[in-house]
């Protein structure tokens, strides 16, 4: 199935969790948050939350700014 991960189209196995996508993009262990289809997925739900076909995932962290 296909999903958008941080703006890039990706082929993901059916049943891929948000947690798997977070490690796929190489996110650091802390200071990271995820939005799925425009809503925050709390860290405690990363394992249980499955990315749907056509899902839009954003994985964000803090950078220098402001």
């Amino acid at each position, binding site marked *: 199935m296909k999903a958008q991960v941080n703006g890039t189209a990706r082929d993901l196995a059916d049943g891929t969790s948000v947690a798997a996508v977070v490690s796929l993009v190489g996110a650091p262990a802390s200071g990271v948050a995820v939005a799925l289809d425009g809503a*925050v997925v709390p860290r405690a739900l990363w394992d249980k939350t499955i990315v749907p076909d056509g899902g839009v995932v954003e*994985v964000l*962290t803090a*950078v*220098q*700014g*402001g």
Partner: protein
Amino acid sequence: MDDPLIIAGREFRSRLITGTGGAANLSVLERALVASGTELTTVAMRRVDSAGQTGVLELLRRLGIEVLPNTAGCRTSAEAVLTAQLAREALETNWVKLEVVHDEETLLPDPVELLDAAERLVNDGFVVLPYTNDDPVLALKLQDIGCATVMPLGSPIGTGLGIRNPHNIELITSRASVPVVLDAGIGTASDAALAMELGCSAVLLATAVTRAQDPERMGAAMRCAVEGGRLARLAGRIPQRFWAQASSPKV
């Protein structure tokens, strides 16, 4: 003299809030932050793969500086609200520097989107520090809907043009019941001192320090300027006179 800055019940000894953008590298940033004496510093939220691991969070934690996530880059209320919620999840803070800008050329706040986002975030339990225009009416409205500060610009972000409308800043500080933080436009130390003399409770700046030729020394300069301006404000300046007035006794 004990004169803490208090935002949403939290006390800070420093009245200088800094940003982390624009520094050549983390080592330069670290020296500038330490010299500035800041206790509260902004970071931006970006996609993991485009940003890489910057190490800025680790740096701030090591220095004991509180992290203030911003919503830089957001153009709409909806974007800003989601970014704030992501920052709360990632950084475990409900504080947010709210930025909703209208366009890239001016980076001026979009007042309609800003007010809407501020209201939604306040209702969602955030401590909202909004970056706003130097508009005394908008500042009052932001305060009235429950923002923890109002943060009017001196001039557009990154311009270093200083405080272009000091009277507006004074109108804002004279009516505010929350701390007023002069945010954006600071070019050099005298701009920061003026902000404090106009009654601001704090100054937020980044570029003026991080892109100075010597960021560490400019960080120290800003620290002194904010302290000096605050002292002058509390001391009460003399009235301005048209004619000279001798300060020595007559011969």
